[in-house]
């Protein structure tokens, strides 16, 4: 006896469906026009162009130099001490330049009266101009040094850099537009990680211990440079609970100098949401289970408002190695949607504060749960966007204060390129 499927097969195999009358004419027209195969080849090209444009944009964004120099902050060891105060005969001229950055220093010109007989006239005119606007008012703190009026020190040159930071009281606005951010996310991860890696270690002799408020000495025993930074940025974000000191002239092995220390108090810290991008590969274990592993670059920025040295930006770059098990619950040739969980090891590539390298963070481990969507440009190459929830396993060796140390249970969004391995 025949199976019903076999009967169905026999009945349909020779069956000729009725074609529309115009079908032969359509076929001839198509045959003359050369078919319709050409329209489908543009699809991968669009993605290739998009990826190249995104990578280029990311490269420009990440590697360009800022228009305004960021070297404006100059921290002096010790405020100039006014000895045998004499009548101030100098003219202080403040250039009426609105600083671009909060941390830009003010340049003070000091001209001795004797050298310029016309200064009394100028004094009258410049005094009006040198009125410090409300927004740039210097807070009156015990540790705030006064402008140098020491004739022997200040009048020796016509210009000097003031230790004052024009504190405007305004918060720096960080504009992130969608297009550069998307470019940065899509193609920039690898470039940024590479750039960070290549520049790593060029200035690592400054052992500033951010998070401990330690007095810093040069490890080689040489005299410390002026780059004493980081001390005062406490491991707690509570303002002022972890003062730091600027020693007058510390030597290796010296005890902490208690002579009129200049306290640089942390007034406020702000940790920005991290930017994450990655290169990932996915190996199918079963039809729906995949092993996902790769590299994930993360960029953390933190802003510290210091009472003495003003605003400082901390930039930390991590390279993570996530290993996850993903379950694809919906898929299409162009997209698939998945959830997964696993672990991620993070290695600090570089850390800097106010543009100067500081000690890197120790490696950390996180538990990661993620869900995401992957868009396949080709069979082997795709782009992914995945919101993820991670919990950083507590590690006392971590020294840097970042968004992730402040939020061990962290929600973030990662994007990147994924290579599909195995039989898809």
């Amino acid at each position: 006896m025949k199976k019903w499927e076999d009967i169905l097969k026999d009945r349909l195999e020779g069956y000729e469906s009725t074609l529309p009358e115009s079908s032969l004419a359509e076929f001839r027209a198509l045959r003359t026009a050369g078919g319709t195969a050409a329209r489908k080849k543009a699809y991968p090209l669009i993605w290739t162009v998009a990826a190249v444009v995104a990578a280029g944009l990311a490269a420009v964004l990440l590697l360009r130099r800022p228009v305004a120099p960021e070297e404006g902050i100059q921290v002096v060891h010790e405020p100039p001490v006014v000895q045998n105060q004499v009548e101030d005969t100098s003219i202080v001229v403040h250039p009426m330049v609105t600083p671009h950055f909060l941390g830009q220093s003010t340049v003070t010109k000091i001209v001795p009266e004797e050298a310029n007989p016309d200064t009394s006239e100028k004094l009258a005119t410049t005094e009006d101009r040198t009125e410090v606007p409300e927004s740039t008012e210097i807070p009156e703190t015990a540790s705030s040094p006064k402008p140098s009026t020491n004739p022997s020190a200040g009048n020796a040159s016509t210009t000097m850099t003031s230790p004052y930071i024009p504190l405007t009281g305004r918060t720096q606005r960080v504009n992130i537009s969608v297009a550069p951010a998307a470019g940065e996310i899509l193609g920039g991860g690898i470039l940024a990680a590479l750039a960070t890696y290549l520049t790593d270690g060029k200035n690592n002799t400054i052992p500033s211990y951010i998070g401990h408020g330690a007095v810093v000495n040069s490890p080689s025993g040489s005299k410390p440079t002026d780059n004493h930074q980081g001390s005062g940025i406490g491991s707690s974000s509570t303002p002022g609970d972890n003062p730091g000191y600027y020693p007058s002239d510390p030597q290796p092995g010296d005890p902490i100098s208690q002579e009129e220390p200049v306290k640089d108090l942390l007034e406020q810290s702000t940790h920005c949401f991290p930017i994450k991008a990655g290169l990932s590969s996915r190996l199918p274990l079963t039809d729906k289970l995949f092993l996902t592993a790769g590299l994930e670059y993360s960029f953390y920025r933190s802003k510290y408002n210091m009472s003495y040295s003003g605003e400082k930006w901390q930039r930390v770059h991590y390279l993570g190695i996530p290993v996850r098990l993903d379950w694809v619950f919906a898929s299409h040739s162009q997209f698939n949607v998945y959830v997964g969980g696993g672990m991620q090891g993070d290695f600090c590539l570089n850390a800097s504060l106010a543009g100067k390298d500081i000690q890197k963070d120790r490696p950390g481990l996180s538990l990661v749960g993620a869900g995401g969507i992957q868009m396949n440009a080709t069979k082997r190459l795709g782009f992914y966007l995945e919101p993820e929830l991670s919990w950083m396993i507590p590690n006392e060796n971590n020294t840097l204060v970042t968004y992730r140390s402040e939020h061990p249970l962290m929600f973030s969004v990662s994007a990147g390129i994924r290579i599909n391995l195995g039989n898809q």
Partner: protein
Amino acid sequence: MHKDLDEQELARRCSQGDRLAEDELYRRYAARVYTLCRRYIGDDDEAKDLMQESLIQALDKVQTFKYSGKGSLYGWLSRIAINKALNQIKRHRWRMVSLDLQSQDTLQEPTEREMESIPQEKLLEWISKLPDMRRTVFNLYCIDGYSHKEISEMLGISEKGSAGMLAKARKQLKEDIRRYVKDTES
């Protein structure tokens, strides 16, 4: 004149760019290839486009056709059409995780007499209403004679998955047949 040409000669003339031979090839095989496309692609208009694209591609590559007996030209054309249909299905399909439990198929098998009473258009209609993957696996396994191993490679699924989808397609078709038989008897 071209109506009397055998498959081999027709293919040779087509490879020489004989437009009348191409028209003859279309007249002979288009309707059957169209049926095949309707089996794989649920929508009739899409099936017609796919049939035309398949025949155009076949004519472009007709010089690669090797005659191996009567019916080999249709076999060659049908493989081109099946490949194109699978590509289209893979491009547009969503593979969702099926959360419905595998229920036992307790429906009675349709008899030979019942099957013969069903019009072919009705059979095609039921097949075209099957979900994409079930329809494809049913066509490949039951009608075009591919094994589960071959199907799993063609569609990028496991053999077990292929067998599961075939079982669901069979059950759904049997339900349609039962319903039709019941309606016609009453």
